[in-house]
């Protein structure tokens, strides 16, 4: 594990070099501990696959530690705080089920993904919906989940030409990742379906539907059910 400056108002704690359960649980443990007991001057922590960035205010650090470089002080404080850290124990994950209407007008790229893998569209749906996914981190866009667990049989390189707008709720495949767009956004992923669920809502507490370490399952639904779920939400 090692801590390095990120500019002059943050440090990055690097926990590993690859994505795996152990690293993920270590990141989770560090994030939890620093949230519970922030170091002097800490503003917030941003956990990712194998790192945690700690943003701080050097002026606040200097108020409580007038001598010494704020970056050194923060680094030393974090080191003390996580010296005995161990990966977070395995515990029951919260499972979030995401209803998805696959194909048709909501999945304009489903056929293409099927063709690319010599599968029928229904097989792509079956394979995608039977996967068990873990949220490794939230980033890129508000509420956007980086999911682990996409079957290698469905990995499809990003589109040559990204779309100017991918509607919020779109479920896609990009390279070896799958995820859901929480907002209307430009995007280069292959869109295979749409969920009526709001992955992000600024007026909800917490605003992001998914959190790091959630388990995610996709459940195929019909167009009628999608419309009904949308209407219920309004």
């Amino acid at each position, binding site marked *: 594990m090692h801590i*390095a*400056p*990120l*500019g*002059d*108002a*943050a440090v*990055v704690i690097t926990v590993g*070099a*690859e*994505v795996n359960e152990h690293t993920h649980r270590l990141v989770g443990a560090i*994030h939890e501990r620093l949230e519970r007991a922030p170091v002097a001057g800490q*503003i*917030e*922590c*941003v*956990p*990712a*696959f*194998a*790192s*945690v*960035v700690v*943003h701080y205010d*050097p*002026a606040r650090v*200097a108020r409580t530690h007038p001598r010494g*470089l*704020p*970056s050194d002080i923060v680094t030393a404080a974090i080191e003390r705080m996580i010296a005995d850290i161990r990966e977070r124990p395995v515990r029951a994950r919260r499972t979030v089920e995401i209803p998805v209407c696959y194909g048709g007008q909501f999945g304009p790229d489903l056929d293409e993904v099927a063709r690319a893998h010599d599968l029928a569209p229904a097989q792509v749906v079956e394979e995608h919906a039977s996967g068990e996914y873990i949220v490794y*981190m*939230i*980033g*890129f*866009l*508000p*509420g*956007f989940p*980086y999911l682990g667990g996409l079957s290698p049989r469905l990995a499809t390189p990003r589109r040559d030409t990204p779309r100017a707008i991918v509607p919020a709720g779109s479920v896609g495949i990009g390279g070896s990742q799958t995820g859901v767009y*929480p*907002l209307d*956004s430009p995007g280069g992923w292959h869109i295979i379906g749409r969920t009526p669920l709001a992955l*992000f809502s*600024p*007026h909800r507490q*917490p*605003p*992001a539907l998914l*959190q*790091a370490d959630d388990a995610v399952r996709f459940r195929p639904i019909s167009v009628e059910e999608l419309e009904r779920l949308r209407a219920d939400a309004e």
Partner: protein
Amino acid sequence: MSIRVEQPGMLTTVQDLGRHGLQAQGVPVGGAMDTVAHRIANVLIGNDEAAATLEITLLGPSLTFASDVVIALGGADLGARAGSVELSPWRPAYVPAGTRLGFTGSRAGCRAYLAIAGGIDVPAVLGSRSTFLRGSFGGFRGRALERGDELPVGEPSALARRIGERLRGHSASVAVAHWSASPLIRPSCSSRAVVHLLSDAHTSHLTEAAREHLFGSEYRIASASDRMGFRLDGPPLELVAPVDLLSEGVAFGTVQLPPGGVPIVLMADRQTTGGYPRIGCVATVDLPLVAQLRPGDRLRFRPISLHEAQAMYLDRERDLAQARIGVALAHP
């Protein structure tokens, strides 16, 4: 008290000092691009530094005030006029009800901050009044201002009222203060900025030639630059060997190097995490300089140590604190 938008200008948004504590939910910090100009404008009129202002980009709006107000501008000089009276940045002014505030065009810099006593009183969303355009939330209805918008203004502080009374005196017309923010604390606006750059994770992975370009060339701010990031046109940069990175947190001022070799400086609305190599980070004290660059303006990087960068940051915070105290003492 409200402000009516007669013309919206090029891109005018409500901003404050951003949303903190939500990056783990993927919510960008956002807020004023030039935080120092925003803060000084507020300090000059007795507002809390975090009070919401209008961030005005290049071509300013035309606004009318429903009641008498005290205002101050910070940042770029965009040719502001209250009625027929010229308003330069860094100097508070009393503006009577019904006056129209307009802007004739940029003389220097890109972004001006209009602070109004009481602050822009739109509802806070996720703890901030900043506008997140991409997500369509925060600020005034999650968007840039449009013609016909009416912006609510909060209650001025007691200090703001005293400043206003002193300025107004017995006048019924626009009255500009004869005091202003010290030149020592005002960030400058230049179309050719020299910006201090800290080393980052992949600075040492740059080729020798790339390192020379990074610190020896003048980069041009590309037109495809916005509140999320500035693209720098200039000699493309190369790493000694490609690196495959996991997405990780980034900072305001992080300089990324995507595969094409065109560096990007991450700005206020940057995403919370990124997967491109990081070849440097702009020192926080120089972020206002960058924020004032217009497309076509030039930028040069100069290395700085972490020690120097943090010393400069602490000095600036001390100066700003003194300015705050100074304004209060001058209006007992």
